[in-house]
């Protein structure tokens, strides 16, 4: 659906995006994650045809975004950062303007306008001037604008900034529902958001993609080893130490703690094959140890994010 190849954008001497490449498939919800100034917004501006790339290409539906600007614009619903709106129009006038711009007519037009009003909960503010709306309603008006023509592709730049927790949940829910039939790209610097909504993540830092994949995939690639917290009940703690060394599924014992005579608390680094965890279980059974707790350590997106973006920052310095 969307193919980005070696995309770069310079603002004068500032290199905002330095040659990124990725694909987004039909029906996927992809999150662009990164600290402020990582290039998320710039990428979105290029995808939507607001900016031309300095180098590289973006193909949407096999069409170049620069050469087929209007065809592609018609396919995309875009919510720019901070949801810019015409503050001297009221919500209804605004939606009518966008409906006109999107060439909606007659029945379909009425239907779609009604649909976004219901879906985005704009009924109570329909005839209010946009300048008088709260941040939450402004954001919703922006979303309504982006979805009014039922686009194939939704591009949402930080759709939940400035909203209160309830509104955030509402908007996420809406995006998730929409995302079922649409190809969606959202940018955010909120980690939970990506975990809550997206099928796939691109982590950006200083204009480059530093990781991409599902959160689990990125996690695995990043930590390289699998960690396991294990609590055992044994007859005698003394003999276990040697057995641990002999066990061929364990790479290294990181923590060895005798809680009392029969209870052992361990943190193990496992050998990197997929049956390692199973192997550990079989090994404890065969030795007659009882497992009290067995918790594989899950690396959180937060850890990944901090690790990737901090490291990048350190290199730059």
């Amino acid at each position, binding site marked *: 659906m969307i193919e980005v190849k070696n995309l770069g954008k310079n603002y004068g001497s500032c290199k905002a995006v330095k040659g990124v490449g990725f694909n987004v498939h039909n029906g996927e919800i992809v999150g662009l994650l990164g600290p402020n100034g990582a290039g998320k917004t710039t990428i979105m501006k290029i995808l939507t045809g607001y900016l031309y790339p300095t180098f590289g290409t973006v193909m949407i539906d096999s069409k170049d975004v620069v050469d087929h600007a209007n065809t592609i614009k018609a396919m995309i619903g875009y919510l720019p950062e901070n949801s810019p709106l015409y*503050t001297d129009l009221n919500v209804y006038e605004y939606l009518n303007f966008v409906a006109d711009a999107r060439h909606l007519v007659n029945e379909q037009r009425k239907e779609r306008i009604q649909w976004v009003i219901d879906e985005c909960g704009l009924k109570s503010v329909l005839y209010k001037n946009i300048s008088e709306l709260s941040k939450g309603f402004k954001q919703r008006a922006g979303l309504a604008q982006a979805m009014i023509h039922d686009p194939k592709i939704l591009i949402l730049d930080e759709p939940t900034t400035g909203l209160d927790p309830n509104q955030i949940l509402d908007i996420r829910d809406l995006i998730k529902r929409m995302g079922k039939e649409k190809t969606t790209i959202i940018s955010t610097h909120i980690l939970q958001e990506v975990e809550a909504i997206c099928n796939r993540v691109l982590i950006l830092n200083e204009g480059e993609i530093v990781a991409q994949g599902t959160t689990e995939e990125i996690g695995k690639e990043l930590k390289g080893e699998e960690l396991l917290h294990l609590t055992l009940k044994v007859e005698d703690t003394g003999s276990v130490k040697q057995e641990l060394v002999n066990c061929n599924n364990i790479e290294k014992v990181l923590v060895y703690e005798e809680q009392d005579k029969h209870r052992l608390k361990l943190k193990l680094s496992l050998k990197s094959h997929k049956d390692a965890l199973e192997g550990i279980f079989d090994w404890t059974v065969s030795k007659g140890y009882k497992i009290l707790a067995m918790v594989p350590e899950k690396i959180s997106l937060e850890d990944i994010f901090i690790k990737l973006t901090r490291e990048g920052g350190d290199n730059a310095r």
Partner: protein
Amino acid sequence: MLANILTITKKELKSYYNSPIAYIVKAVFLVFMSLWLFTVNQFIPRGIADLRIYFMMIPYVFIFFIPAITMRSWAEERKMGTEELLLTLPFKEYELVLGKFMAAFFLLVIMFCASLVLPVSLSALGDFEWGQIIAQYIGVILFGGACISVGLFVSSLSRNQIISFIFSALTLFLIIIISEVNRMIELPLVIGNFLNALSFNYHFEAFSRGLIDTRDIMYFVLVSGFFLYLNGKVLVFRKWL
């Protein structure tokens, strides 16, 4: 295509009329022009049924009034970020530019329709030459259109309304006044003619005397087209920045 242009025009007009700007500009214009005619120039005691003095003033009034109408058109869009919205909707650049032009132009036409009250109500007092008045109105509308194009172009260069206003006024001042240089100093004929050819005022003079010259019409149409074209180019050029 036309539908797209009208969509923009409609939106622009809604914005104009939802804010006080349109009303203020019109009211001030009409009041000021009436004061100029009746108080400063003593139109009634003079007893000449000729509005030339009214229309001669208009270029100088336009220096301030046209920028007041056009200053926000692009500058405000950029400042509020709505430009991003506009440029990512399926419009072509020229449709956006023409849409905005038509809206400002419409405002101008409405303003002059309101000023028609003047000759109509005065017609009871004397014998006006209606042919001349028609020529004057045509001239003023063409002249205003060219000024609007300049104003829109300058507005597209800035994100600050005030700066946009000042530079539009300055640009208009220069284009309008440039032929006056001829009157102040002796210039070689070629340069003098060249300055005349550039000047808004020079081309407007014939209209205000009641003459409709196709060259003058062409001049204003071409100038309008030129600045609207530049305006469109600015929008495209900015995508590369």
